[in-house]
């Protein structure tokens, strides 16, 4: 059942995607466009396979930078959001700065960060963190604020202090918001890493794209693009999976009727 419904769900998208590839293939083949301008998808695929070793070699550093940067950003977002939750003035101090950080054009800032921190892993981590930090920070802070008031009041009446209430109520309340932020920011992460590599790196998908472009090999540029898309989609899928595992009660809601039904409340009365 689950398999059938999943297939049914992705079927329209799969058809649309296949159609797009087909049109592209036909245009490239029948339109007489040179492969150095618009390579057909079949050619991109073939070249990607032929250059698979080089592609893999360059995917690994990008993946490493993405994951390391994202992990840093995650930890920083959690710590800062908790601090902001405890000290309200900090929010007024930090948020304008954070919003300003989101207005920086990545094209301009990436070469500068590379200039300051070299060609190593650090500038990539910083750039990935820069683009992914804000959505998660905002999501967490809003999530804490979404805690049901009666739950906080009840815990206070039970004698729980602020820290206790944060762990028992405010942080779990923020989970749905956090995962929404995670899904958004994770799609920026790979792009952030590629931008950083574009500005200067020894290896990575970004620098691979740059050199392929300079060698008039749009097929290899597109192959690298496909790899980075696949990477992003995988990370997105992992985020969705993590949400399912972390919030099992959300799944219980949808199949409530199937499992227990709505028992009359008088039932079980002594």
């Amino acid at each position, binding site marked *: 059942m689950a398999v059938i419904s999943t297939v049914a769900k992705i079927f329209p998208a799969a058809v649309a995607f296949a159609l797009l590839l087909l049109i592209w293939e036909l245009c490239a083949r029948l339109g007489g466009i040179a492969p150095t301008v618009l390579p057909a998808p079949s050619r991109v695929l073939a070249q990607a396979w032929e250059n698979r070793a080089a592609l893999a070699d360059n995917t690994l550093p990008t993946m490493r930078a993405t994951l390391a940067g994202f992990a840093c950003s995650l930890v920083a977002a959690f710590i800062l959001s908790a601090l902001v939750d405890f000290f309200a003035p900090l929010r007024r101090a930090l948020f304008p700065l954070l919003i300003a950080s989101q207005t920086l054009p990545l094209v301009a800032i990436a070469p500068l960060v590379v200039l300051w921190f070299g060609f190593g892993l650090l500038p990539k981590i910083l750039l990935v963190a820069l683009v992914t930090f804000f959505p998660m920070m905002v999501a967490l802070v809003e999530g804490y604020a979404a805690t049901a008031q009666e739950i906080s009041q009840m815990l206070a*009446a039970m004698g729980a202090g602020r820290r206790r209430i944060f762990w028992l109520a405010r942080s779990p309340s923020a989970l749905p918001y956090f995962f929404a932020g995670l899904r958004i920011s994770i799609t920026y992460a790979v792009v952030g890493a590629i931008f950083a590599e574009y500005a200067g790196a020894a290896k990575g998908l970004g620098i691979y794209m740059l050199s392929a472009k300079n060698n008039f090999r749009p097929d290899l540029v597109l192959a690298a693009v496909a790899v980075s898309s696949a990477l992003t989609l995988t990370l997105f899928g992992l985020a969705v999976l993590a949400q399912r595992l972390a919030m099992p009660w959300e799944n*219980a809601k949808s199949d409530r009727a199937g499992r227990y039904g709505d028992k009359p409340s008088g039932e079980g*009365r002594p």
Partner: protein
Amino acid sequence: MTRLELRNMRKNFGALEVLAGISLHVEEGEFVSILGPSGAGKSTLFQLLTGAIRGEGEMRFDGARFAFMPQRDALMPWRRVIDNATLGLEVQGLKRRAARERVAPLFAEFGLAGFERAWPAELSGGMRQRAALLRTVVQQCDMLLLDEPFGALDALTRAAMQRWLETMWRNHRWTALLITHDVREAVLLSDRIYVLSARPARVVREVAVPLPRPRTKSAALAREAAAIEAGILDILLGAAEPISQPSDGENR
């Protein structure tokens, strides 16, 4: 023995007078209701009791802490029913396992047997409310504070829950203070009822309900209960007019 005594409790929010001197007392093992129109300041009174806000007046409470059951069930959707029930014990410092052992035997009596590992979202409205009450009573506090506990339920479920609560109370004799605007609920459950006026709230009448329990047993009892209900309704509706008139004068 007097568990709780309030003398002339007053509370203003800025220029708004909410409580205009409330005096009441609750004896050990007694079920007392506070009945009043919506917006009379009943919940403000509870907030005073739980210490969420401060007011003027004298409050004497013979005990350590109230066990508070809020209007909506306030179950945490991310905790299983049993872990919601143990919440108060965990806050008191009990280890989760010990707390679960103490709570588990009570599930049958609360009509929740077999639902220990369910999520709150899987329960019906009445079951959620019973789970919330379970969470409240296992704290073994000296007094229960129930803030319109059945207000969010449909009429049929509410009636079933009121009967169930009466049975539970007969077995356990908790000292309880119930806030409600449901006259029938107050008469069914209480030993005594304090009838409040509209805002600013004061006690307009103290009504004793000397009926034997269970009160749903015979037609004769139901008639007596209905007579008391009618009397209280008269007080509430009669009091509403002269009180609401001068409040216009206050605004001037």
